[in-house]
Structure formats: C-alpha cells, structure tokens
C-alpha cells in the first residue's frame, strides 16, 4: 500500500522535525491569538490597519518583542500540511476522510493566497440615467493626464506606487515631464490669502499649502497629495500641486494642446458598460427599516444590450466581474446607486476546498459516530 520511499521519508529526521506536533499546535495557538487580538485591534484601528499589522510576517509587540504574523504562521502550517500529505499520512481507506480534509485545507490556503494576490475590489457609482465605462478603486490612486478629443478622453495614468520622491513621470506624447517632489498618502490642503493671489504651485483649486496627515482608520478615507516639478523644454520649471479631494483637474497647455491632470482614485476601464435606469428602495411598512434595494440597469456590450436587475444578495456577474448592490444616495440631484465590483480569479477555490474539508470531516466523523452507536447499542 504505502510505497517504500514514503515510509523512508516519513521516518527521516528532517520530516520528523518539520512535522513536530509542537510546531503545529504552537502555530494553531498563535493563529488563535492573532485572530483574537486582530479582532480587538480592528475595533479601534479599522480593518485596513489591522490587516496591515496582523497579516505581515512579524509583529513587534510594544515595539520590541517579535511575534510571528499571520502570513508566517500560515506559511509554516501550509508547508507542514504539504509535507505531511506527501510523506506521512498513510494511504489507507480508514484515513480517506483525513486525506480529503487536509487536502481541502491546503487548497483553501492556496485559494486565500491567490485572492490576496490577485483579487481587485472597486466600486461604481451611477446616477439614474448615467452610464459607467469604468470602476473606481477604494483606496488606490493615480495621476491621470489626458486630452479631450470630441467625446472621448485619451488618458495616460501613473499609479500611486510609482509616486516616490524623485520619480520621473514622462508625459509623452507631450513634450514635458514631472518629477515627484513629495507624495503624501494622506494630506490636508489649505488655501491662503496671504500670498495675494500669487500661488507657489500650479493648482486648479487655489491650494497654497499642504501638510501630511496620519493615515485614516479606514484607508478609503485618505486624501493624498502630490507636489511635482513640471519640466517643459524652453520654459522655466514650475511646481504643480495635485490633491485627492479636488473636483477640478489642472489644465495645462503643452505643445499647444490643452492637457488635463488630476490625482484621482484609480480607474479600471471595462470593455462593456452599464446604464442605471432606476433605483428603488422599499421599506418595511411604518418603519424606516429597508426591506430591499434594487437597481435596474442596462448592460451594453458591443452592439448588444440587455436589462438586468441587481439587488441585495443577487449580484450581476459578467466577464469575470461581479457587481453587488452596495450602497445608495438620495439627494437633490436624484438617486445614485453604488455597486461594489469584484474580480477574483480564485473565486471558486473556497467553494471547492471547503466542500472538501466538510465532506472529509463528515466522512471521518460518521465512521467514528457509527462506531459509537454500535458500541453503546450493544449495552
């Protein structure tokens, strides 16, 4: 049954050391503590910050004592699982349940890794009658540079990860480039009357100065700011200031053309579009407890178009994107509906893996439970 090489490998001291029960138990116990304290931390500092702190490889407790972070613990447990399954777990029918359980667990961890690395979450807010061609990030930003030709925008964009001081953003095809002077993840901007209308920066909203701020509890609430040096041949260099909360883009004339610049939440273009036809909110009678939120949209792709209803627990899935009814706003401008948009190549893995774990456990426990029933019935 059990091939020789497995038996040999299972007895190897390295295997034994890797699979030492103390490591597994300590790992699980650490995971328990990490989740417990992570949950408490989240209540005070927000989810983004909690994930940043607890999902690393090391946590410095009180700044001095190192404690393994979730990533480290999960890697160790994953390796143990893989080694255990490859070399040690006996290939017998009695252990079939355990095989499935642990295989499922390994797959679950792989799926979590894929989601962590590749899933993109964004949103799309539409007013009634509006058509959306792109989704927008929650907490990722970009410097967008574009010109308008008829109805369409030609956009050149630099993502926020590239905005390190000293980085050069080439604005080709226009004869100009930007050199990042400062980039603040979260900042407050001020106008000033002292300068008498002469601003130190080129800016669309009259911002005279900017100060860095501590990142917000919830990362999407951050408002970043950028100061960069604009170099255009044959003209003196000037500094420009872009701020995340500005509603107007900065207009420049480059090479005789009107070019617009804005620091905005990152846009993800779609190769199809959605038009919000109607948003409906229903309440339980006599209360303001919502019974349902529903968005009626038209989905356009190429020349075809079809009506779709998106409502609570019933998202629209299309071309790997999933649109969820997430939020709404009703103001004097009318009704707006917000969709949470997700793409995740690993979306189905948790379904498969948890089904495996569940099935395996069921198999294993049923075998044991039947034994218990048989034993006690004999009395």
């Amino acid at each position, binding site marked *: 049954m059990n091939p020789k090489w497995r038996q040999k490998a299972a007895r190897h001291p390295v295997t034994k050391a890797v699979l030492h*029960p103390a490591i*597994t*138990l300590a790992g*699980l*116990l650490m*995971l*328990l503590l990490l*989740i*417990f304290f*992570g*949950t*408490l931390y*989240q*209540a005070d500092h927000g*989810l983004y910050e*909690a*994930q940043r702190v607890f999902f690393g490889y090391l946590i410095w407790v009180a700044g001095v004592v190192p404690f393994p972070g979730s990533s480290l613990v999960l890697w160790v447990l994953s390796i143990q699982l893989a080694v255990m399954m490859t070399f040690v777990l006996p290939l017998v029918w009695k252990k079939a349940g355990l095989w499935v359980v642990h295989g499922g667990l390994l797959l679950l961890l792989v799926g*979590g890794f894929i*989601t962590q690395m590749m*899933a993109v*979450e964004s949103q799309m807010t539409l007013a009634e009658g509006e058509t959306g061609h792109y989704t927008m990030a929650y907490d990722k930003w970009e410097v967008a540079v574009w010109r308008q030709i008829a109805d369409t925008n030609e956009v050149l964009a630099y993502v926020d990860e590239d905005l390190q001081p000293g980085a050069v953003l080439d604005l080709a095809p226009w004869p100009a480039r930007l050199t990042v002077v400062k980039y603040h993840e979260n900042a407050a901007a001020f106008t000033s009357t002292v300068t008498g209308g002469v601003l130190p920066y080129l800016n669309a909203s009259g911002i005279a100065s900017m100060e860095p701020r501590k990142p917000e509890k919830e990362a999407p609430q951050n408002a970043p700011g950028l100061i960069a040096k604009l170099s255009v041949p044959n003209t003196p260099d000037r500094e420009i200031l872009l701020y995340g909360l500005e509603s107007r883009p900065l207009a420049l004339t480059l090479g005789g053309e009107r070019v617009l610049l804005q620091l905005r939440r990152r846009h993800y273009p779609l190769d199809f579009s959605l038009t919000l036809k109607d948003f409906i909110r229903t*309440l*339980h*009678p*006599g*209360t*303001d*407890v*919502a*019974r*349902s*939120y529903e968005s009626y949209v038209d989905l356009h792709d190429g020349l075809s178009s079809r009506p779709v209803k998106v409502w*609570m*627990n019933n*998202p629209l899935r299309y071309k790997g994107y*999933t649109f*969820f009814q*997430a939020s709404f706003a009703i103001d004097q401008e009318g009704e707006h509906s917000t969709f*949470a*948009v*997700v793409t*995740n190549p690993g*979306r189905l893995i*948790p*379904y498969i893996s*948890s089904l495996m*774990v*569940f099935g395996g*456990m*069921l198999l294993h*426990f049923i075998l*044991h*439970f039947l034994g*218990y*029933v048989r034993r*006690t*019935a004999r009395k």
Partner: protein
Amino acid sequence: MKNPLHSLLLFLALCGLAAAPLRAQPPASGAPESMVSPDPEAHSEDDGHDHGSDEEAAEDIQPELGGEFTLLPEDLGRPSKGLNPRDVRAFGAVAVLHDGRIKPLETLARHLLLQWSGHDAYQGTPALAIFAQIVFAPEKTGDLKLFRIDNPEVAEALGITAEKKRRYSYRQIEPGLTKLQALSQRADSIEEAKRNLVEKEVLRTFGNVATYLNLTRSLQFALPSASLVIAVPETRNVLGLPGLAEGGPTVSFWELMERAPMMAQILDGIHEGGGEYSPVENEIVRLSRAMYLQSQTGMASPLRILPNPDQPGTWLSPSEVVATPGLMQRLNAEIGALAAMTSAYRAGDAAAFEARASALNASVRRLAAAEMEKTRFPLEILKNRVNPLFVSTVLFWISLFTGFLFFLFRHGGAASRWTYRITWTLSGLALFFLTAAIVARVLIMRRPPVTSLFETFPFVAAVSIAVALFLERRSRQGVALLSASLLGTLLLSIANRYAADGDTMQMLVAVLNSNFWLSTHVICITVGYAACALSGAIAHIRLVRGAWSPVPTPEQRASLREVDRMVYGTLCFGLLFSFIGTVLGGIWADQSWGRFWGWDPKENGALLIVIWCAILLHARHWGVIRETGVAAGAVLGAVIVSLAWQGVNLLNVGLHSYGFTSGAALKLFGYIGAEILFLLVVWLVTEIRKHKRPPEIS
C-alpha cells in the same frame, strides 16, 4: 340605516365656519384639548398622513408638555364601569401595525407592558385588560404603577421618592414630566454609543410615558370630553341625548358626530337668521367649535389599527382618521365600531363589546385582505397565552433541582430511580415546549428559526438539549441529563432577559432578509455553538467527578471513559458544524459582497471555535493532552463560544453587530473569570486529593 355620511364633510366645514369668528377668543379653560395649538390651521391635513419610521413617529407623537396642565384627565364627567379581563379578549384579536409587522393587539399590549414594567401582567391582571383600560377608560389608569425606573437617580431627578419595587404610576411621574422631557432631549442629542446608564434610562422612561399618553388619547373621539359639556337641558332634548342624570354632563365627539345633521340644521338656521343666539344655539355653536378643534388634534398613536384605504400597506390610528374628514367618511363603519366598543366598555356591556369588536375585526380583514392573509393570529395569541418559552424555563429549573437530587441519591435505589425518571420527564417536556416556541415563531414570522440575537438562545438551547438527551438515552449515567438541565436553565434565562426588551419578532434589515445561505449559515453556526456548549457542560461534570476521585475504581473508570467519549464526540460535532457554518457564511458573503472572507468579528469568532476544536483534537491525537486535558479544553471551548457569540457584539463593529447590549460585558467577563477559577479549583482539589490517598494496588 341612515348614516350622516354625506353630511359629515359639510358639517365639519360648518363647524369650521362656526369656529371662525370665535377663533380669536382664548380656548375653554382647563380642558386637555386646550393644550394643543388653538389655531386649527397649524395642523395641515398632511400631518395625519405622515408615517415616518417608528423612531420618527415616536418623536412626532411626543406630546407637548405644559407644566400646569394635567395631560390625563381625572374625570371625564361620566364614570366607566369597565369590563372583566375575560370580556375584553375579542379586543386582543384586533390587528395592529407595529414595528413594521401586523400583529394582534394582544401581542402589542403584552410587549408594551413588558417594556414599561418588566412584567407581562399587572398584579395578576393580564396585559390586554390593562391596555383596554388605558385606551377605553384612561382616567382610571393614572395610579397604576406601570413604569419601571431602575435608576434611583432618574426617579430622584423627577422628584419621586424611590420605592422598593421601582415601579411608579403616571400620577407620580406627572409633576416631573417637563423636567423629564428636558432631560430626554439632552440625552437624545448624545450619540447612542456614548450615552450613560442614566441617560438611557431617561430616554426609556420618557419614551414609555409618551407612548402611554398617546395611547390614552388614541380613542379620544369616543370618550366623553371635558370640552364637550352640555349645560342646557334643552340642547339634550333637541339632539336626542340622554338626560343629565342618566349620562353626566359630558358627551363624546362621536356622540355629537352621530347627530351631525341635526346640529348642521341648527347652525344653518343661525347663519341665515342672524341676530341674538338662543341658549341652545349658543351651546351648539360652542360645541361645534370644540368639535372642530378636537377633530384637528389627531396625533399618530401606536394604535395603528385601521388600514389606510388610500395607501395599501400603511395603517392609521383612529385619531388620525378622525382628523381627516375624507378618511373618516371612508372608514366610518370602523370608527363607529370603535366608538361603540368604547361605550360598551364604559357601560360594562360585555356582549355588545364583543359583538362590536368582532365586527371591527371582520371589516379590517376585508379592507386589508392580502396583508391579513399572511398573519397567523390564532397561533400567535395561543403562543402569547401559553408562553412556551417561559414554561420551558420553569421546567428546566425544576429538572435542574431534581437532577442534583439524583446525583445526591446516586446509589440510593428507589430514590435514585425516581429522581432520574422525574428529571428525564421534566427535561423532555421542557424540550417539547421549547421546540413548540421555536416552531410557533417560524410559522408566525414565516422565516428561518434564527434571524436575531435573541433567537439564537432558544435555538442553541434546543439543539444542545436534544443532543444531550440523545446521549443520555445511550449512556444512562445522568451526566448528559444534568448537562441538559444546566444548559436549559442558563440559556433560557438569558433568552428571557432579552424578551423583556419588547417584541422579539422584529422585521429584518434588507441584507439579512431571507436568503438560503444566510439561514443555513446561521443555523449551522448556532448548532456549532450548541455542540461546543454541551461539550463544555459535560466537561464540567466530568472534571468535578474526576477531581472527586482522582484515583478511580475500575467501575468509575469505565463510567468516566464513557463521559470522556461524550466530550470528545460533541467536540467533533462542534468542529464540523462550526466549520460548515463558517464556510456557509463565507459563501453568503461572497454572494452578497463579493468577498468570501472579510475578517468580520463574527466570522473571526466562528473561526476561533474551529481552530480551538482543531487544536484539541490534534493535541489529543498526538497524546499531548489526555482525557482531563480534553475536558478542560472543552470548558475553555465554551468560553470561546461565549466570546464569539456574545463578546463580538460588544465590539460594535462589522456587519454582525446587530445585538449590542450594555452591561453584557461585565457578565461576560464574570463568566470567563468564573470558568478560569473553576479550572483552577478543580486542579487544586485533584492535586490535594491525589496526595492524601495513596494509590490502590490493582
């Protein structure tokens, strides 16, 4: 039957005309009606239709409190005989829209009284009878000690000497009402999470008193009114009202309304004739004016018992209907039935009361046929009367007692046999009532058994006890049986405390609304809680027994082994269901938000249980811990369950924080402390006893 339907509108218009020249005069003195704005125009017609949320409504209907006035008349001029509690039963079957749900008035009466006083009956009188008295004979309810004020500081602030029972009557609170209103406005301006206990108590008390006052006025149109006094005997003759000696000086709005054509005729005559008014004419003009004012004072009351014929799905309180002539015309029969019920109640005529209540019921069922079809009133009323949850709690308490007796008499032959049988029967019966309570809720609300924090307690209790009784059938040691009683008393006592907050059958917010994944997720998670809780309960008994005989005889050892197997088995069961519950929660989240796992505190709590069970099972497998260790682990497992179940709600973040309750933190920490202390004591006792007795040679 000739009904003054067509003349109603005309008549009210005439009343308005008659009132017009008099408007400048100060309103009649002392009468409660004079409290309201004397300018009828101040109440636009839309006011009557305004249905905000219940919170909004609660603010809408907060009466304007004026210090010198009494908001509750002591005497309506005509005494009420009242009816026996048994005779108002038909009133309990009247439908009312409250908290977004159509329910029998019986339920509303019970929950309001529970909310006000903490009991669902008042000194032996059922809630419905008290409710009927508040509505039909409010003048008699001022001295009932209906309002519980726990916080002595609040009582003192209102100028009330704190009493031992902490329950106070409206008359006791009334002198401090203005202050109470000011205090509650201040408390209301504070963010909910930041309010302290006193502020919460102030808000609760003011809300309760305001609801009470609104109820006392909800059938004002049918009650004799101090502003509708007929002093001239001839007026009574002209209008065909009973004499002063028979009736009393006051009449009700509706009594006059029924005589509207006659009054209209007289008013017409005045406007045509001009000149001096006769005493009768003078009185009619005065009455018309008072009626007009009264008809305009309709405020929203929690008594929304009339379906709005213009807007299906919304319901109106009688005072709102009376304030709007168009509605009064459309709902004339129903308003008339309510007025007749009022008269019958006050006259002590049980038969007439019942007949009119049934007529009202039939007519409402016709008006709102579609909505009424979804209700199950007979079942709901039966459930209210039997109160299966309470019965079950009592049975569990008794079974806990007999269960302990069994352990005392363990080796006592007949006594042992009988206490065992009694405990077994009581637990079985308690489980039956508990299941009945859950099934009744499922049927009434037409939704899965667990949708709110409250509902988790009866459900977890039912599942763990069913499993415990199953194990007991097999092992017959009494350990699982005693665990069942322990869990039953503990969990149901908590559930009963939640039930004191009012109607526990509330509507759900959109995201929690019926969804396959949600219901299966919640059920599996709670089954997981149940298994781990049971495992913990059995482990307690196991540890105590183990500590008692650290060096067991072979017989004891066999028995302990059996108990160990139960602890282990329930742990496995708990792991399985906690895991599948967690995964189903992930599927639900993925279906609803697009993320399988979002580190929501409640999800994390479930994951903690899964990981803890996994640690225990692996440690046992590798021999790191033995039987006692597994049992101690199961006790800690119950602690983790309590954190996941209750502790998470204290964090007040995330999607699942629907069940925040103050003061719970202290109890939770108390529980955790007690468990740790328990484990320490067990360990100490084991060690001491081990050293006292040298091991037997076997």
